[in-house]
């Protein structure tokens, strides 16, 4: 099992959710985060003060998936979240040693 972590533009959440649901992803966890990548903070003039806005609001998705669909899911996320402009985001994939489903106590692939 893998944990896919995607950092996307907030307004893409709906689309991405729909895309991955169609691929059979059973659950998602969403966190509001801030961040920057190569899309660096920009300078903003605001009521007289120049402010450096370093961190822009982003949405972080975490999806635990079984190994077989990892690639498709990553691709689906990337395709749906892409606008072609800076700040589109990143996807990270990490190994999941174990998954437990609390209600039933199931573990492993069943539990995802």
């Amino acid at each position, binding site marked *: 099992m893998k944990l896919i972590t995607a950092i996307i533009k907030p307004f893409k959440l709906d689309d991405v959710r729909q895309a991955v649901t169609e691929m059979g992803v059973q659950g998602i966890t969403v966190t509001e985060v801030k961040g920057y990548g190569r899309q660096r903070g920009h300078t903003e003039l605001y009521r*007289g003060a120049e402010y450096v806005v370093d961190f822009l609001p982003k949405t972080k998705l975490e999806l635990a998936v079984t190994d077989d669909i990892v690639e498709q899911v990553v691709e689906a996320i990337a395709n749906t979240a892409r606008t072609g402009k800076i700040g589109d985001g990143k996807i990270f994939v990490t190994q999941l040693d174990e998954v437990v489903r609390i209600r039933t106590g199931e573990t492993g692939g069943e539990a995802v």
Partner: protein
Amino acid sequence: MTQLKTLLTRFRNALRLASPALLVASLLAPGLAFGAETPVADKGDTAWLLTSTMLVILMTIPGLALFYGGMVRSKNVLSVLMQVFMTFCLIALLWAVYGYSIAFTSGSAFFGGFDRLFMSGLTVESLAATFSKGVYVPEMAYFVFQLTFACITPCLIVGAFAERIKFSAVLVFMVFWFTFSYLPIAHMVWFWAGPDAYTDAEAGAAAGATAGFLFQKGALDFAGGAVVHINAGIAGLVGACFLGKRVGIGRSSFQPHNLPMVMIGTCLLWVGWFGFNVGSNLEANGLAAQVFANTILATAAAALAWSFAEWAFRGTPTMLGAASGAIAGLVAITPACGWVGPMGAIVIGLIAGLVCLWAVTKLKAMLGYDDSLDVFGVHGVGGITGALLTAVFCDPSLGGTGVYDYVANAVAPYSMSAQFIAQLWAVGTTVVWSGVVSMAGFALVKATIGLRVSEDQEREGLDTVSHGESAYT
């Protein structure tokens, strides 16, 4: 020049020049020999004056507190709320103890006397003069109304040094500045003997000589352009310079943490300002309604001016811009609101919106001070703009009311240039006086208890550091 002097002398002697004033019932007795009846306060006037007093409080707490609190970062919001709230409470008590006496009893042209220390002699029967002969309001109502002006003015300064000052430093400075800048300026601008003293030219001259310094100069300040806004704006500028810039300025984001809070604050300021401006008329009459209209129209014009200018130059009209514009308009119409017509008010608003936008963007950048919430750019610059434009739009030929001659019991011939000079006196005196007192005050606090929290504390935020709390959990 001689002509000018004559004019000013005339102003000095007799005219309806400034905001409210006080006539103690006991002083009144002799005057009553002339009239047959004991004057009695009209309950409609009293009702409006109490309503206005309530509105000025609403304007300060929570109005101003929210306007400022929403603009700081979330780690400092409580510190701003506390600074405003505690300053309000502290000054209210000092007003009862000695403030009212020093501002509104007769003394020199710069300071009043001690007759009303601890409110002695101020009873439920005492009366205060209005601007109409024979019309009085309960002095106690005048006391509380003016209390709210005394309380809000120091609170305005809080915005200049927000996010980095020690809480104890705020309190100590406020006591000092209130005593040595607010009280004398209020006395200079607003203290006079009341209209009933102007029975004839001689009596008028005698009465005029007891008035405050700027009142005698003929300066017009209906609701506190100089006393409140320029006064506080200058103190803010001095404070910003003394405190120095906030840590991280220019590098990190200092965006307002809660713009809806700023919006609520703005609206409550606007709503409360009707008490501030219209209450300053002391009577609930047609002129009061005109002051009301002016206070709406100038503010609306200024908010539109700022927003559209921002739309043009920045690409989008911001909520913070609209709010700032509204405040700029309110500030600028304050000295003028009882002297100008509605069309004059609109023009004042338009100008003030643009001038203050320029001040907080260009002027501030040029001078390089860090006035956290633009106290100087809005209250200082807006107040000066309004004070000077008052001379222009007070002109009856431009829809203004002109200036009333209480000896002749008629509107006096109007000289815009003479009035402009009188306004310059008010602006100049206030700038210098408040500047000097503020410097002394900040220097004193710096030398004793210190002005600023440590850099680490500033990063951590004043809410935790100074008040041991977090705004949101």
